[in-house]
């Protein structure tokens, strides 16, 4: 029974990775029409370097991802400090308000943003993309950072204060260092969320300013160009690396009851 279970898992994992493997293989395939068998070549990566729209979209994606990560982490961490550490009326309500951005289908949020930004003159473009991405990332940050705070013993700061630390000193010397792995993990998560975001970006992009996923989508709709495989492969490698680091950080920061 156990062996059967393991085999089944391997089958599932094969299913999950098959198309991705195919795509990566095609990125290194000489043939323009994706004909098999595979002839190894770096041709498409070279062509990629000359593909201006894809490159500029990649730059935008990275830029926005960095900015989103920084802003969302800062805002989300502050909010989490209040939500986790303090009891106050309306806390449950605030917690519930974090759900809509995650629970409501992105199609609805994306179109709503489009409508509202157009109407109020905010418009589309890099600034709109940033506003949208940060809004999506904030709930995730609050969740991750909040969970990290929960694993911290509440009386550590009190102990520091009893030994002569002012509240501020206690926060910086005790809470912050122990909290940092969670904050870093959240920042990474926000980065990944922004990098992979498609739907919202789709509605908030303009023909000149878009992100990589949106650009890939347009390219697919217009017709296949193999550079898409190349850039997707690079993209995949970056995302995987990020998530790997995130997993490592979560393991370090999230362990309960450490002393």
């Amino acid at each position: 029974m156990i062996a059967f279970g393991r085999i089944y898992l391997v089958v599932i994992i094969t299913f999950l990775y098959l198309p991705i493997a195919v795509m990566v293989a095609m990125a290194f395939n000489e043939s323009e029409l994706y004909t098999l068998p595979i002839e190894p070549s770096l041709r498409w990566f070279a062509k990629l370097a000359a593909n201006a729209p894809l490159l500029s979209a990649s730059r935008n994606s990275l830029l926005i991802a960095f900015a989103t990560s920084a802003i969302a982490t800062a805002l989300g961490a502050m909010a989490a400090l209040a939500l986790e550490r303090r009891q106050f009326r309306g806390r449950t309500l605030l917690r519930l308000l974090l759900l809509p951005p995650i629970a409501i289908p992105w199609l609805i949020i994306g179109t709503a943003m489009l409508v509202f930004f157009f109407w109020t003159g905010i418009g589309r473009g890099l600034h709109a993309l940033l506003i949208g991405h940060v809004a999506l990332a904030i709930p995730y940050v609050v969740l991750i950072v909040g969970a990290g705070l929960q694993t911290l013993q509440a009386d550590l700061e009190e102990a520091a204060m009893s030994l002569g630390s002012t509240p501020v000193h206690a926060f910086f010397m005790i809470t912050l260092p122990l909290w940092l792995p969670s904050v870093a993990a959240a920042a990474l998560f926000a980065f990944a969320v922004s990098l992979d975001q498609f739907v919202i970006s789709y509605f908030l992009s303009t023909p000149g300013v878009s992100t990589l996923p949106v650009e890939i989508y347009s390219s697919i709709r217009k017709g296949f160009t193999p550079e898409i495989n190349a850039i997707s492969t690079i993209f995949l490698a970056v995302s995987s690396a990020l998530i790997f680091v995130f997993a490592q950080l979560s393991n370090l920061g999230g362990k309960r009851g450490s002393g």
Partner: protein
Amino acid sequence: MVRVEACSIGKLYGGVLVLDQVSVAFQPGLLTSLLGPSGSGKTTLLRVIGGFVAPDEGEIRFNGEDVTSVPLWRRNVGMVFQSYALFPHMTVEQNVVFGLNRRGVRGEAARKETARALEMVRLTGLERRRPKELSGGQQQRVALARAIVTNPRVLLLDEPLSALDRRLRQDMQIELRRIQRESGLTTVFVTHDQEEALTLSDSVAILDRGKIVQEGTPGAIYERPRTRFAASFLGDANFFTGRATQGGVETAAGLILTGYALPPIGTSATIAVRPEKMKIFGARSADFETSDENKIQAVVAEIVYAGAVSTILLKSADGGQIKVLTQNREMSLAAPGECVSLAWSAAHSVVIED
């Protein structure tokens, strides 16, 4: 050595009066226990004394000086938390020296003080370890060393032994006592364990639902409990309720004589007798001669054997349960179902308020 006083402390939490006009004095250099069931307010009182939480009413005084408005970080108290609250990202040495650094003591002087404190708790040699590498007992000692190294005005302990297993607990009780005496710090110790309170304290204050029920030395409270609560919480007691007469109380189990002051004749009165103060005389006992004023009949219900002592549960004439604690000097003083006599002196009949 600092004299600590809590004066008419009141604290309200969400509509509940957690502390109600509580006044206690903690003598300099002595260990006072705050004893009570959960919810009695003892931990809250401890936190008010330390400055972790501000009282809604009343004052805290150190050597007569009002420190109620002095914030926690300037009050110079040493606190040992129930969870120890050791800083996980610092070594033992860094944990202990933390308070010293905050007070401006650094370098060689700090290291010397730290070494002295660690020696006092018998943890020399573990300076470089992290809290998670230590056992529960060791963590507790580090917490203690950290609290006393700064020579605080008062040492506060919040049920510090509750996380330890029984054998370790007993060992630590003795250790704690020694350390407290050596350091000479005025100490407030919170516990719900009455045996712990009896073992460690110079003085005990019993709390129930936000009020001080009784205060005094362990012996005084144990021998002369003032209320039913105090009598039941600290140790065990047999209660006899009836009408007060001259020199005693007329109860359904018989006339109980007492040497203590009674309420007016005819009113309701209750007497408490500790289980170990009663002697059993029965079919198997050698002598029946006793100068004890009180004698009643009872039937043995059950005998709980515990090696050195036995607890004997009996039913009195009116059906009430009586508990007697006796040393097992002789084998089997009685057997279940036997009718025996219980005797105790009037001096051990304590009149209590109900």
